[in-house]
Structure formats: structure tokens, C-alpha cells
């Protein structure tokens, strides 16, 4: 069991509001090895983001087990958990507090977790994500989308976690900025031996970033593929084949269903 960094077994997530029940994730299982980058692909409503939120305790799990480094994850999460697992959110315009400077965004996790040498760590984190200390006292509205996402990455890194959950980290960015952020994420993984779990709707991004991936639809795991399977179009299910076709762009010859 210990050769898995993160292990998800039969994960179930149910949202209850009043009498309504939404079964967002229905028995999803996967294992992520240390240093691996694992992708989850699906369309909206597939539950792919909910899986990430459930891992870090933002969504209620109604069944299944989660293990980190072989040990069960306590619920509610302990503060120490967040030193090991951090997350980068989809929309860099929504994930930074509009009234906090980059300095307070980065110093707050250090203060909460009781880290020392804070000035040094903040400067280092800003350098690591390619921003430099000149950005330290700016407000989010003084940054572009790509710069904000770099700040979000710096915030996730500053607690020196082993696992980073990436929830569509580039879908709100322009194509050229997406390339920069993807390169940054790859470089950081290589430098620090990080483990990634990355969610995206874009098969090309996932195949670029991840060695293995899981296809999800309507809260269910459809199939697990390796990057090589994806490139060879070795999909066992119609749904994955459909996704692959759609991601190639518009084709006129296609006969409508």
C-alpha cells in the first residue's frame, strides 16, 4: 500500500440541500504514485472537480476511503494535512482575496502553520514562480490573469506540500499564458518531486502534463488510460472515443447523431 502517495477507493460524494440529493461522485477509485502526475478528464457535471474538493475536505464524502502515504485521512482535515496537500483553483480572478496584497496572501499560510523565516520564504516563492519580489506588495487587481495564477501556485507551494491538486489551472487563461503556466508547473514538479492530480476538460493539456488519466462521466469513472493509450487512441469506451474526436476540432464530414 505504501507505494501509493494518494489512494482513493470507492469515493462517493452526495450533496444534500433540503430534500434534494445530488450524487455527484459515485464510487470512483484510483491510485497515484509518488512523483506521478495523474489526470482526470471529463465534461461539466462529470464530478471531476468534486473529486479534488473531496480529497482536500471541501466537499462532503459519503463513502469510500482516502489514504495519503498509506495512512487514512482524518475528517475533518487536521491543519497538518494541508502541509502535505495543497490545491490550485481554476479561476485566478476568484481565488485571490480582492483586498489582500500578494504579501498577505503568501504570509497567511506561513503564519497559520507557524513557519519561520517568512520574508525569505515569500521572496523565494515569488522567485520560484517567476514573478520576483517586485510583485510582493501588489493587489490582485494590479496583476494579469497569468500573474494571478502564478501567485496561486506560489501560495500552494509555500507550505512545501508533496501533493498538489490542480483544478483546471489554465482553463481561464489565454493560450500563450497557458503554455507558460504549464511549463512552470512541469518545472516545479521536476525540481521538487511533486505529485500532481490534475483535472481538466482539455485532453491535450492532460496528455501533455500527465502520465496516466481517468475519464469521468456523470460521477462515474469511465476508464483509466496511460498517455500512450491516449496517443494510440486505444480507448475501450465509446465516450472516450467521442471526447477524442471532439477535441480534434470541428470536422464537416462528421454525420450528426
Amino acid at each position, binding site marked *: 500500500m505504501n507505494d501509493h502517495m494518494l489512494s482513493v477507493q470507492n469515493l462517493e460524494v452526495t450533496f444534500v440541500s433540503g430534500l434534494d440529493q445530488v450524487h455527484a461522485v459515485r464510487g470512483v477509485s484510483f491510485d497515484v504514485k509518488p512523483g506521478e502526475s495523474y489526470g482526470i478528464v471529463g465534461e461539466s457535471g462529470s464530478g471531476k472537480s468534486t473529486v479534488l*474538493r473531496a480529497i*482536500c*475536505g*471541501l466537499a462532503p464524502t459519503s463513502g469510500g476511503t482516502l489514504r495519503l502515504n498509506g495512512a487514512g485521512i482524518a475528517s475533518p*482535515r*487536521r*491543519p*497538518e*494535512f*494541508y502541509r502535505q496537500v*495543497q*490545491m490550485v*483553483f*481554476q*479561476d485566478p480572478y*476568484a*481565488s*485571490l*482575496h*480582492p*483586498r*489582500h*496584497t500578494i*504579501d498577505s496572501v503568501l504570509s*497567511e*499560510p506561513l503564519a*497559520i*502553520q507557524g513557519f519561520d523565516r517568512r520574508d525569505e520564504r515569500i521572496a523565494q516563492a515569488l522567485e520560484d514562480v517567476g514573478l520576483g519580489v*517586485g*510583485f510582493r*506588495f*501588489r*493587489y490582485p487587481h*494590479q496583476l494579469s490573469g497569468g500573474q494571478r495564477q502564478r501567485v*496561486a501556485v506560489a*501560495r500552494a507551494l509555500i*507550505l512545501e506540500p508533496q501533493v498538489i491538486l490542480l483544478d483546471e489551472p489554465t482553463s481561464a487563461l489565454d493560450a500563450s499564458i497557458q503554455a507558460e503556466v504549464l511549463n512552470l508547473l512541469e518545472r516545479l514538479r521536476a525540481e521538487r518531486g511533486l505529485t500532481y492530480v490534475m483535472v481538466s476538460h482539455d485532453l491535450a493539456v492532460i496528455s501533455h502534463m500527465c502520465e496516466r488519466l481517468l475519464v469521468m462521466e456523470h460521477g462515474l469513472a469511465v476508464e483509466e488510460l496511460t498517455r500512450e493509450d491516449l496517443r494510440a487512441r486505444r480507448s475501450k469506451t465509446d465516450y472516450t472515443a467521442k471526447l477524442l474526436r471532439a477535441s480534434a476540432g470541428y470536422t464537416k464530414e462528421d454525420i450528426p447523431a
Partner: protein
Amino acid sequence: MSTTRAWLLSDAPLSRRQAKLGQAYRTWLGFRSNGLAMFGLLIVVVLVLLALFAPWLAPHDPLTGDLNTTRLLPPLTEGYWLGTDDQGRDILSRLIYGSRITLAVVALVAILATPLGLLIGTSAGYFGGWVDTVLMRFTDIVLAFPKLILALAFVAALGPGIENAIIAIAITAWPPYARLARAETLTIRNSDFIAATKLQGASSARIIWKHVVPLCMSSIIVRVTLDMAGIILTAAGLGFLGLGAQPPQPEWGAMIAGGRNFLIDYWWVATMPGIAIFVVSLGFNLLGDGLRDVLDPKGQK
């Protein structure tokens, strides 16, 4: 001067202080371009200055007058520009001293009611569930009473006097702030930046205090400023009914009450404090509208 401006408007501040001051300067630039709001600010600043320097500005003693020589002098009399009342006291001096009471009421109500409303509203909104139910139903109960009547009941129970009037007004003033803070909190609490803060292991108290409250603050400030006029009127109303400031204190509402017995023959005795209340209420309203434009992005066109 232009270097200070450039330093303040810099897109790359070099220290925490520069970032904070720059932000404040930008808000001020937005506020400054609104003429009516600046007029409101001017009125409020004048009120504060009057209150601070009352002993130097007032030409006469506000509490005692000469019943033989200066009784009920009309406005524009030499030395008594706004006239005198039935006790022979200079109305201008009484208005100047009365600004201290008005300002004290406004400031104390703001200090008492705002934190209470914020605490109840943000807690209810952030925690939700039964905390929300209990706190908001309690708020609804307080809100269900007519404001002035509830204040009257409190003052009647506690005894008349300006201190009790302030407490009574504060007790009736917080529920709208709680509701507003709760509504704001509901929109904030599911945002990604709150989730990101949870992922750093932050406690609920920390999230509410450092992340939710600063975002509720601007709309609360706007609301409180706009309510100031109402608070002044309530305080004046209590004074008028004899339940607020007690004679011979120069409270504006009580002054109107004192003048109403001879309103026809000596109109200025009641009219002058009336104008003062009107001007100050207007000032706070204009200021509040201006603040809403710069602080509350939702109100922006």
C-alpha cells in the same frame, strides 16, 4: 507633489505601507470627483470642527442666559445672529455645543451597533445551519418592532437621559447591519479564495475576521453613514419627547421641543435647530451616497 502622487499610484509598491496608502489614495481620487459627496463631507467635517472647538467658537454661554435683557431676541440681532430663546440663551452657541451631543450620539451608536451587527451577520452567514436560524430569527424579532417605539420603551425602562437614549438607539439599529452582513457573507463564503484559506488550515474565526469582514465592511460603512441621518432624527425625536437629553443640555431635538410652544410669535427658536438637523442629515446622506459609489462596486453604473 507629483512625485508623491506617482509614489501613491505606483503599480509596483515596495512596502506594505505604500500599498495601503496607494489603495486609500485611489479611493480618495474616486470620491473627490463626486461634487455632492464632497459637499456632504464638508458638512460633516464642519460639524466635527464645531464640536471640537465649541468653547472657542461659541460667543455666549449655552446654558445660562439673561432673562431681563436677552430674552427671545430675533435673528440678526447684534451679537446674537440666530436670536435667543425664552431663557435668554444664544441659539447659535447652543447649536454649536449641541453639535457635540449630536456627534457623540452618532459616533457611539456606530461604535456599538456596527460591530454587533457585523458579528451576528457574518457568523450567521458563514456557519449557516442552526446558528444561522437562531441568530437571524432573533434579528427578525428585534427588526419586527418599530424603531422609535422600541427605543421609547427602552428609555422609559432605563430612565430618560442621553446615555440611555444612545443605548436604546444602538439596540434598535444593529439588525439591518446584521442582515446586510449576512447577505454579503453568503456570497463570499463559497468563493474560491475562502476555500483556499481553509486549505491553509485557517480557523473559522480567522476566516471571518480576516477574509469575510473586510469585504462586508465597505457596504456596512455605506449603510451606517446613510443611517446616520435617521439616527440623528431618532435622537432628536427622543429629545423632543423629553426622553433623550435633559434640560438644560443644548440637544437639537430638545431645543425644537422647547420652541414649539411659541412657534407662531417666535419662529426662530424652533426653526434654527430644525435647520441644523436638516443640514447635518443631508450631509451624512450625501457622504453615504458618495461612499457607496467608491466603496461598493455593485452600486456602480
